[in-house]
């Protein structure tokens, strides 16, 4: 059927009208990196203000706008689209499909993102300022007491949700229908598995988020009282709805990261992934559990004791499948032939720091102890260990790992390793002391703090500037690779890499697998 072998169109129309999964993946990746820098800039403003006690640079209200936009941009603009970009590039190549199942929708799901973020960022210049109620936007602070820009925020969230839902439907349709003959479910690379499960999570919870913001819209403009006790509603209802979305959301972020790590660790251990089947089952268990633990974000709202106990026990259970994953990765390394190129370094960084974040997660699950941890910097440290050292480190590993395949050029290894070490050290200087100030009693989302927290906050700010600056090195390395990297032409760029994407030429041609490939052997064997 597909008999026209053509390359990309010329000029801007290539990008505007493209239905090619590689082009769309590229756009997603660049867009998410731009958002990563924007969200990172907001973080730098936050850390600069917190460098010393006292108000120096910004006003408290603007500080809240910064924390809010930092969270929203990083979660919805940087991390989620980056993994969608990765899915676009890799899923068709990993399952032997010529493209995504729904290519036009694919174009649309990307192109509605930039206007949504433009609108969100434009709220900074509106009267009353940008949203200043935290990325969790609890009512009634985000309804009755919000600046008028909240309406634009609601619209932006709707668009992001539509984009995510379309992207996930596309991934589900692709994985279910377009696998090459012989590519059974239990032969799929783990990255495809984690994304398939993630896509189901997205389809399940993004409409819930849309419901939450729609109810806000009604409360603000149409006189309803979903979240106002004065009219018979309940502010806590908002939190239940938000976290019914929000908890699966954190697994939406981390499951594809698990998938990436499960591809890269075997490659640089030169040994198949240990416990492939148990990895699949653990991923599915985590996804299931993510739906029944949401109220652990709300231990202090005054739930009945039965609720507290249920959510505590269910949350603790997540440690089991997560532990299985960590044990499997380490067993994969055990007695392998390890080498430590940049992607592997980032994966090992992920493994160590994500596990630390998992431990603090377990501590936070203990409801009575959470009364002391809740909404302190201990929580901030915890979720940055899983979001940054988890999702962002694994995403960075992915870029270094697949970039040579994408552009046919090798990145500068010394610069890559330097990037890793500066990131790793900068990250820990930033976030490790936040455990201390949190336990010592510093609440999160405050623009100024008591004097006993001063030293650790200064340390944290210095670390943040280091970590932030290291990302510019990353940008430089990637651009330099694309423009003038050393050409590579081996199909298998890495000697230990396994999977169909390493059977196509390097750089990957515009169209791959127009003829379905032969799937030779089950995943997990060599």
């Amino acid at each position: 059927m597909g008999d026209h072998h053509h390359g990309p169109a010329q000029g801007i129309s290539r990008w505007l009208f493209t239905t090619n999964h590689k082009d769309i993946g590229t756009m997603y990746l660049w867009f998410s990196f731009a958002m990563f820098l924007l969200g990172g800039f907001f973080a730098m403003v936050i850390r600069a203000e917190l460098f010393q006690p006292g108000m120096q640079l910004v006003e408290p209200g603007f500080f809240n706008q910064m924390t809010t936009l930092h969270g929203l941009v990083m979660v919805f603009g940087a991390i989620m689209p980056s993994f969608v970009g990765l899915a676009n590039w890799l899923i068709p190549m990993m399952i032997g499909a010529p493209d995504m199942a729904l290519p036009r929708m694919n174009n649309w799901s990307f192109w509605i993102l930039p206007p949504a973020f433009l609108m969100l960022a434009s709220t900074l210049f509106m009267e009353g300022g940008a949203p200043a109620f935290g990325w969790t936007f609890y009512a009634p602070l985000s309804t009755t007491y919000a600046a008028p820009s909240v309406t634009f925020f609601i619209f932006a969230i709707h668009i992001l949700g539509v984009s995510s839902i379309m992207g996930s439907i596309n991934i589900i349709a692709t994985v279910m229908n377009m696998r090459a003959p012989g590519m059974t479910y239990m032969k799929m690379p783990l990255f495809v598995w984690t994304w398939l499960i993630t896509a189901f999570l997205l389809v399940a919870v993004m409409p819930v988020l849309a419901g939450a913001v729609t109810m806000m819209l009604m409360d603000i403009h149409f006189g309803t009282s979903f979240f106002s006790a004065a009219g018979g509603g309940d502010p806590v209802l908002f939190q239940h709805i938000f976290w019914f979305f929000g908890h699966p959301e954190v697994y939406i972020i981390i499951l594809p990261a698990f998938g990436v790590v499960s591809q890269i660790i075997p490659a640089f251990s030169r040994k198949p992934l240990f416990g492939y089947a148990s990895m699949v089952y653990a991923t599915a268990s985590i996804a299931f559990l993510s739906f029944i633990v949401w109220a652990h974000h709300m231990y202090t709202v005054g739930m009945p004791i039965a609720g507290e106990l249920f959510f505590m026990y269910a949350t603790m259970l997540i440690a089991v499948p997560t532990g299985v994953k960590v044990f499997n990765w380490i067993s994969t390394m055990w007695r392998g032939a390890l080498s430590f190129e940049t992607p592997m370094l980032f994966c090992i960084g992920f493994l160590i720091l994500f596990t630390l974040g998992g431990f603090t997660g377990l501590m936070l699950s203990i409801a009575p102890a959470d009364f002391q941890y809740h909404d302190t910097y201990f929580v901030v440290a915890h979720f940055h260990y899983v979001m940054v050292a988890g999702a962002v480190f694994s995403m960075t590993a992915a870029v270094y790992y697949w970039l040579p395949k994408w552009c046919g050029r090798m990145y500068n290894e010394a610069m890559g390793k330097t990037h890793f070490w500066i990131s790793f050290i900068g990250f820990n200087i930033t976030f490790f002391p936040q455990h201390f100030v949190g336990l010592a009693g510093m609440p999160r989302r405050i623009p100024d703090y008591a004097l006993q927290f001063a030293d650790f906050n200064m340390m944290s700010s210095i670390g943040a500037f280091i970590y932030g600056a290291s990302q510019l090195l990353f940008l430089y390395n990637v651009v330099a690779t694309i423009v003038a990297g050393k050409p590579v032409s081996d199909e298998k760029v890495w000697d230990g890499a396994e999977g169909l994407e390493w059977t196509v030429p390097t750089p990957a041609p515009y169209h791959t697998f127009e003829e379905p490939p032969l799937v030779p052997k089950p995943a997990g064997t060599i």
Partner: protein
Amino acid sequence: MGKRVSGLTLAFLSPLSVAQNQVNMSPGVTEIGADIFELHMLIMWICVVIGIAVFAVMFYSMYAHRKSKGHQAAQFHESTKVEVAWTVVPFLILIAMAVPATSTLLEVYDNDEAELDILITGYQWKWKYEYLDESGEPVAFFSNLATPQEEIYNTAHKGDNYLLEVDEPLVLPTNTKVRFLITANDVIHSWWVPEIAVKRDAIPGFINEAWTRVPEEGIYRGQCTELCGAYHGFMPVEVHAVSRPEFDAWMAAKRGAAAAESQLAMQTLAVDDLMDKGKAVYDSACLACHGAQGEGGIGNAIAGSAVVLGDLSSHMAVVAKGVSGTAMQAFGGQLSDVDMAAVLTYQRNAFGNNTGDVVQPGDVTGIKNG
């Protein structure tokens, strides 16, 4: 457990109860605080032990199984036995953690048989405390941040209790089971004092319960822990735990002051008195939004404001009833008639608003009664 706890806590209870560069949770002074601290340490040590074991294996592998040393990769990739083992063993460890966690939680939720009830209401950005079950003149007051703006904006040296000090602290009797009923007037706040291990969200329209029994006299400080708007970082909690006799004396003095205040409302006050009191009320209630010089900020400017320079009863209506849909609260329920008269007088004469109007408490009562 109680005795062991008090021994532990003595070491932590410095007069200021702040430790520079504290790295761990404080066990606090209450029994529950100590239980939570022990639970926290237990879980942390279990994690540390597991972490050391797991990372030791990983680092050994990174050292011994390097390709650069010529190590050949083995090809094993599954073992049902170890998979079952590392599913079951963590599960058993979790059960061991859940047992003490459950019993501590049940303790935290035991709100029965309180000897004193205190209603805590969160406002943007201050706390209101009302002592409920005492007969006689009701005792209720607001507790505002006492740290001066000059310290916050770095023009004055920051004191030891920077941002953790209030004008009127909550006073509790020691060795008394106190029940807190916690709610909010506007947005969600959260009332937290780490040293007594109480944190509960203050939710508008709903009342949450929490309790404490403070065994030792002392000053315990905390903060609002739920983002509640621009000045979320500036609404501290300060609790003074005092002996029962001292508490009773304090309560009597409070009642006396309340009675004197209602006497004052009957009188005609001097302009200077009204202006002095008005400035105090303005600084605690209005300044955060309207600025130290009435220049505005979150709220509109007071200096030259048409509302302030205009008709008195509409000026008072805005202050008393607030402006719906904005951050302007209804101060009618927060200010006494004397305070209201004083702050209206102050606003109409300060910041260049030289109207010359003097508002007396009687005028306020008059407008209220139509």
